[in-house]
């Protein structure tokens, strides 16, 4: 089956991103396909490459990047939510006149249409949030 995953909360304060990650791994292990993981609202904060968690804690951001690499996952960050919260890729940063970007490897920035598309193309949509 094709699953769409929605993540509405940022890392560390809430468990949502951890739960979504564990669910996604389990779905892949069972042979399901992940159509897309869509990061919305504060969920966009999962897509920064600047996080530096303590050595004895899991690195939520790099967990997603690694999983995307292994399974060719499509990790999409909502552009409107990302702009408000300061998650930018190189071209967004350039357009906004910012001197740095912070998007993590494996994530891409796109519009809310990608969420609707996830709903259309997936057999099941599962949302995680606060």
């Amino acid at each position, binding site marked *: 089956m*094709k699953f769409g995953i*929605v993540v509405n909360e940022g890392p560390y304060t809430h468990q949502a991103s951890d739960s979504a990650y564990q669910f996604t791994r389990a779905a892949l292990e069972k042979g399901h396909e992940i159509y897309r993981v869509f990061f919305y*609202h504060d969920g966009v904060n999962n897509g920064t490459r600047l996080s530096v968690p303590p050595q004895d804690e899991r690195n939520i951001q790099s967990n997603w990047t690694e999983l995307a690499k292994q399974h060719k996952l499509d990790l999409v960050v909502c552009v*409107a939510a990302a702009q408000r919260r300061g998650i930018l890729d190189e071209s967004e940063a350039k357009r906004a006149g910012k001197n740095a970007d912070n998007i993590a490897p494996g994530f891409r920035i796109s519009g*809310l*249409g990608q*969420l*609707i598309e996830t*709903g*259309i*193309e*997936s*057999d099941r*949509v599962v*949302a995680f*949030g606060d």
Partner: protein
Amino acid sequence: MNTQEDSSGANGQKRFLYVNRRAPYGTIYALAFDQDVSLAFLDDGVYQIVKGQDTEGIGMKNFSPTYRALGDFEVTKLFVERESLEERGLSSDDLLDITYEDEDDDWAEKPSIRIVSRSQMTEVMAAQDVILSF
């Protein structure tokens, strides 16, 4: 009732339900439309469409007028739960006037808001292909 087969894939139109359970401003969101879209307002979500919202004093944008434009995007089904209104001391008179022009009825202006009971809301939910909460 849809089966998995007829509800998935790029060609079949899906029924999307956006569930609003939270009050505005404390939690903010955007909406996007396509397909066969319904909105559900229950619990504190009914506060989203209360009229007379004036956000100047809190320095935030007032998103409630955007609901009035829903008809232009062919979103004409706004289900509001009666019990949620009553528990909050509200009635339909406290809600925004949200209407659409019915192209099948000589463009007559009709109300988009449908007050439903809790058990009817349960049926609305049961008739969807995709349910997203905000």
